[in-house]
């Protein structure tokens, strides 16, 4: 175009051809620059919105990754001698390993070059020999050596963290929490053939040393330190106690951290539970067969928290047991679950430090990793041909030390971040420690580090659906009926103000709705419970009566008011019904509910929370009414006019036209309106956060609260550790919400688009 004009026009006015071409080039350049800029920008925006999916998924994905062990290093046990390790330990940074041997030596060595840092020998009383060894929970790093004179020495492997020249240097130390002098455990001074120790936690102070003597008595000593009167070193206070004779086969006692139970087993595959809590009869309280006939128990070890323990059998079986309180307040030994069995006898069990996982080794050199709550065996690997004698995990579960009978130690790097999740842990009933029945429980964290996290998604999912369901029961009829009326019966002028008013509702911040629901509506409903139900019955009755009265009204009056003003005329009816219900509410309570409906509900066995599903239903229904209304109204309003006019022309009444023609045609649109409303109710956060008690219950009782996925995220996410299982589960909840609403919205959007096409074809 530009070229043509240059030829014909005068040169004085128009620039030369060269200038014009240059200008044209620049314009084209600009044009394509803009094109690319917008493409890049637009593409980037679209991609970044897609990034939300990708990112949420990437945060959840590590959960799916299996457990693995890598980079094995193999070396002779440092300062081996001929004694194998009774126990292996790893410190937090995995710089140093420690082995405690049967002959009373503690060897610390550096993991990277296996150089021995320190060796120390435990000394007892003169002429006393070491006869036994035992350990508490790995978390406590407490060990005990028993001697032939009935005494014992308690020690801890400790590591002092120093930073000379900003370099981390760990100095291994042996600590004697109750002094270096041996503590007399057996008052009769006989040799201890088995010994164990456990420092108390959660309120129980001091520690308990329990032992079996060579003459088959169970003895125990409670030890606590006392600052001596004149300051100076702490003094150990020992109260030893003889619990009497036991079966000669009884062996391997372990003490729980509340210092009230001793669990041991015998040579016939039976478990024994001894009570050492003074408030109940001391001594043997229960026994139970724990392995199949013909097999022995070879290993017995508490899991973290010592509420349950793992029994390993000579047949390779692994079962988890716990104590369950019976009706008569007695505790009995109860099996919880069994894990994938080894093919050979279980020779080592090591519990994780801060969670319910454990590692097991067998006589064939196979290593297995398990997790109790999720009931998973996450790893099974042949690591050696020799029997495994000891296993240690680092406190942060990143390293694994294994010693086998050939005197060799294997060091593995471990990746075992999320063994606590499984399909059954999230979605099935799980038997948790201390409970009689499997249950759906969400209780993901607590202050204590021996707490068993309970992460069942069922209560949250049920809660989400419950809240959305009650909201829909309240909102859908009101919104759809209102939409049909507005679109079909209302005068156009009134419609012009009504529709934006209801749509303005959509913009109301949900925090305001939540606040009103929690602080105004919930107490109001509680105080005027009968009123709610009276309004529910009264309003439709009132509308019918009003319609009847209008029917009977004089013709002159009826002609004054045009059709389409019914809604406006009903305003006084609604006000009247609400007012009458409010005034009658206390009387209704008196007449029908003995004076207090709430108490009456409780007395017939219905739990009543002040912030309940009824309140949430009303408040959240309020929030979704405009969404449903707006879309449904559009669907009804855009039904082609010739359809309805045809129906009316054929003699149908307007109500018949609505039900037989309009609704049928618009039903996909109304369906998608309800779907979108449901999607909004599912993801709504503030209203449920404020108007429910946020207790994760599993029921559909309208008078109880719930905890929804979204509210749960809002409450818990700021306080979880980044990368922990809990964190990832919350991301998973967010991903579920995202996918759910996305699918619901897409489906309803497609339905609407097809409906639009159909309308245009009609």
């Amino acid at each position, binding site marked *: 175009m530009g070229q043509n004009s240059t030829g014909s026009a005068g040169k004085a006015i128009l620039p030369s051809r060269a200038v014009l071409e240059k200008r044209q080039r620049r314009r084209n350049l600009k*044009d394509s620059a803009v094109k690319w800029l917008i493409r890049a920008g637009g593409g980037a925006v679209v991609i970044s919105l897609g990034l939300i999916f990708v990112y949420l998924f990437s945060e959840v994905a590590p959960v799916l990754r299996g457990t693995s062990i890598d980079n094995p290093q193999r070396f002779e046990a440092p300062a081996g001698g001929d004694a194998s390790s009774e126990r292996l330990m790893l410190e937090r940074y995995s710089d140093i390993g420690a082995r405690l041997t049967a002959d009373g030596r503690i060897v610390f060595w550096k993991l990277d070059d296996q150089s021995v840092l320190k060796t120390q020998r435990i000394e007892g009383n003169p002429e006393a020999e070491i006869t036994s060894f035992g350990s508490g929970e790995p978390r406590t790093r407490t060990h005990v050596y028993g001697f032939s004179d009935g005494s014992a020495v308690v020690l801890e492997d400790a590591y002092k963290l120093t930073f000379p020249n900003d370099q981390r240097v760990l100095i291994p130390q042996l600590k004697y929490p109750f002094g270096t002098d041996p503590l007399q455990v057996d008052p009769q001074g006989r040799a201890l053939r088995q010994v164990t120790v456990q420092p108390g936690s959660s309120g129980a102070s001091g520690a308990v040393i329990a032992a079996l003597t060579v003459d088959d008595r169970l003895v125990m000593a409670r030890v606590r330190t006392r600052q001596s009167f004149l300051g100076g070193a702490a003094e150990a206070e020992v109260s030893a106690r003889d619990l009497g004779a036991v079966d000669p086969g009884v062996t391997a006692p372990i003490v729980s951290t509340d210092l009230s139970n001793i669990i041991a087993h015998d040579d016939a595959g039976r478990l024994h539970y001894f009570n050492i809590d003074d408030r109940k009869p001391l001594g043997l309280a229960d026994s139970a067969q724990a392995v199949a006939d013909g097999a022995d128990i070879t290993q017995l070890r508490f899991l973290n928290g010592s509420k349950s323990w793992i029994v390993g059998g000579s047949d390779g079986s692994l079962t988890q047991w716990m104590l369950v309180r019976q009706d008569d307040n007695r505790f009995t030994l109860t099996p919880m679950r069994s894990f994938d069995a080894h093919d050979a006898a279980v020779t080592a069990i090591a519990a994780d430090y801060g969670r319910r996982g454990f590692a097991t080794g067998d006589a064939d050199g196979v290593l297995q990793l398990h997790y109790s709550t999720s009931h998973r065996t996450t790893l099974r690997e042949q690591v050696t041909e020799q029997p495994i004698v000891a296993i240690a995990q680092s406190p942060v579960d990143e390293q694994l030390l294994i010693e086998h009978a050939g005197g060799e130690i294997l060091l593995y790097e471990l990746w075992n971040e999320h063994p606590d999740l499984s399909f059954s842990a999230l979605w099935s009933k799980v038997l948790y420690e201390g409970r009689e029945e499997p249950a759906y429980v969400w209780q993901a964290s607590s202050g204590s580090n021996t707490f068993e996290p309970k992460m069942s998604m069922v209560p949250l999912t049920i809660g989400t659906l419950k809240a959305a369901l009650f909201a829909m029961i309240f909102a859908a009829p009101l919104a759809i009926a209102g939409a049909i009326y507005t679109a079909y019966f209302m005068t156009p002028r009134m419609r012009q103000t009504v529709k934006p008013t209801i749509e303005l509702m959509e913009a109301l911040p949900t925090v305001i709705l939540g606040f009103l629901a929690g602080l105004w509506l919930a107490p109001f409903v509680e105080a005027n419970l009968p009123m709610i139900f009276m309004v529910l019955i009264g309003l439709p009755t009132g509308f019918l009566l009003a319609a009847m009265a209008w029917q009977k009204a004089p013709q002159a009056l009826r002609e004054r008011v045009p059709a389409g003003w019914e809604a406006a005329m009903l305003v006084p009816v609604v006000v009247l019904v609400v007012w009458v219900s409010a005034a009658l509410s206390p009387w209704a309570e008196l007449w029908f509910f003995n004076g207090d409906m709430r108490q009456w509900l409780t007395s017939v066995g219905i739990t009543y929370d002040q912030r309940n599903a009824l309140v949430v239903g009303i408040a959240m229904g309020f929030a979704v009414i405009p969404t449903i209304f707006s879309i449904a109204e559009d669907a009804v309003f855009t039904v082609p006019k010739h359809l309805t006019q045809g129906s009316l022309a054929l003699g149908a009444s307007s109500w018949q036209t609505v039900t037989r023609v309009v609704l049928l045609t618009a039903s996909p649109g109304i369906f998608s309106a309800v779907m979108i409303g449901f999607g909004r109710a599912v993801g709504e956060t503030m209203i449920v956060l404020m108007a429910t008690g946020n207790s994760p219950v599993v029921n559909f009782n309208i008078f109880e609260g719930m905890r929804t996925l979204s509210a749960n995220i*809002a409450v818990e996410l700021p306080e979880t550790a980044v990368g922990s299982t809990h964190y990832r589960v919350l991301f998973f909840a967010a991903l579920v919400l995202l996918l759910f609403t996305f699918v619901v919205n897409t489906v309803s959007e497609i339905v609407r688009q097809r409906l639009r096409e159909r309308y245009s074809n009609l």
Partner: protein
Amino acid sequence: MSNTRKWFASGDPWIWMIGGALTVSLLMVIGLIGLIAVRGFGHFWPAELIETKVRTASGEIEIVLGEITDTETLTPLQLQDTDLAGQADGDALTSRAQFKVGNRDVFSSDFRWILEPRRIETRVPDDAIMLERREYGNFYGYLVNIKRDGEVIARGDNAFDELKAMLEKNRAQVDELEHIDRYEIGAINYRLEQARLDERGLEFNRDKISAREYQQRMAEIEAERETARAQYKDLREQRDALMRELNRASVTMRTADGREKEMKLSNLIRATRNNAMSVFEKTGYYLVKFKEFVLGYPREANTEGGIMPAIFGTITMVLLMSIVVTPFGVIAAIYLREYARQGTFLRIVRISVYNLAGVPSIVFGVFGLGFFVYTMGGSIDALFYPERAPQPVFGTPGLLWASLTLALLTLPVVIVATEEGLTRIPRAVREGSLALGATKAETLRRIVLPMAAPAMMTGLILAVARAAGEVAPLMLVGVVKLAPALPIDGEFPFLHLERKIMHLGFHIYDVGFQSPNVEAARPLVYATSLMLLFIIISLNLTAISIRNRLRERFRADSD
């Protein structure tokens, strides 16, 4: 009978029924807004102070003075829980009133329920005084005397005027004191903190600079610190002097039941005789209180005082968000409508983008926390602020991340609105421009964008309205109950993107649900809700009116 059936068959009752559903929905909206408006506006109106004689369960007579804040009706069974148990006769209903008796430091609780049968005599005394205090909430009682340096300087009838005059005089000094506390000492603290950070940064880079330079810079930092400390000392003295002056005067009040309480005048804000005030005076009081609410700082764990920081934080965040969301939203809309190849793929993309508007906001919050705060913020800290470790700068929720998260959340809103505007531009206009030889970019800039501008404006306003009311994602990415400093102040770089902010919506949640004295804080929550509601409704109405005008214009254009 058949008549009724015919009537039902005609469908008339059903029309009334669905009309009723609409009426109910509409009345709920109006009722809700009305409830908030009445409670919110009512909060500042000086309430009547009512003195009532109460016969307690043990038969003693007690006098109670306060405002009535609530009443309710009890059935005989509900009466069982009160101290009137057993005295209920038959089916009679009893009512009770909630009194705000204030005087938290004397009575330990601000509210008490009084049963109607227990009230034997009620009067509205003209000389009852409501004292608004900086601590412990309101005081209701009677004036005994005013002291200065321990000497009684006024008592009796004229003492109230004297008290008002003194409080008026105090106000200037108190303002000065607050200014020192909030701004001047804050500024010095900021300088000291900067000096500390500079020092750490210097230590960090010690091997990169010469020893001489190191010494020199160290000396500079030390000098800066010295001056700051000296200034602090001066300020401190100034403040102490003011405080001493303020604390010289005190007022002694008597509660309705006769207990006397002496209070420092510096603790008082305002004294009013509510019952003796004319409507004119009440209006004046109302306006002052309202101004204090909008422009003041919160007191007493947010349950009293103003909400200025929350309004300020909300506005700052929303502005930042707009700056981000507008260009990106508009460019994406132009891309989708004008540049991308229309087809099935684009249809999918468009539906996806639209659907993101319906994704729960908490999901955006989770994304913001994980991606912006932990991933991006963590990287920024590691790159640019190594000297601050282990304290995070951007690796913790803050203004920037809150704005970005909300920008992402509102992006679909802007895209949808802009696209709608672009679609409405008649094809003829665009083609006319192209036919005259304009390039696509020129058509876009000169024709399309100006015509679509109101639509973009609508989108932006809707986005702002949505962002202002959103709370759930903000709880995760940067909003706190009490921010120590505003995000914009006089210290370089003036806009502090890493700071945490306060937010109106979160303020409602926090004060209503997390504060220790919910009952006392409730009126304030209503007022805050009203504020938020007002902002959002007016934004929405603006957007709606722009959109309507736009539709009219294009209807005219295309005809």
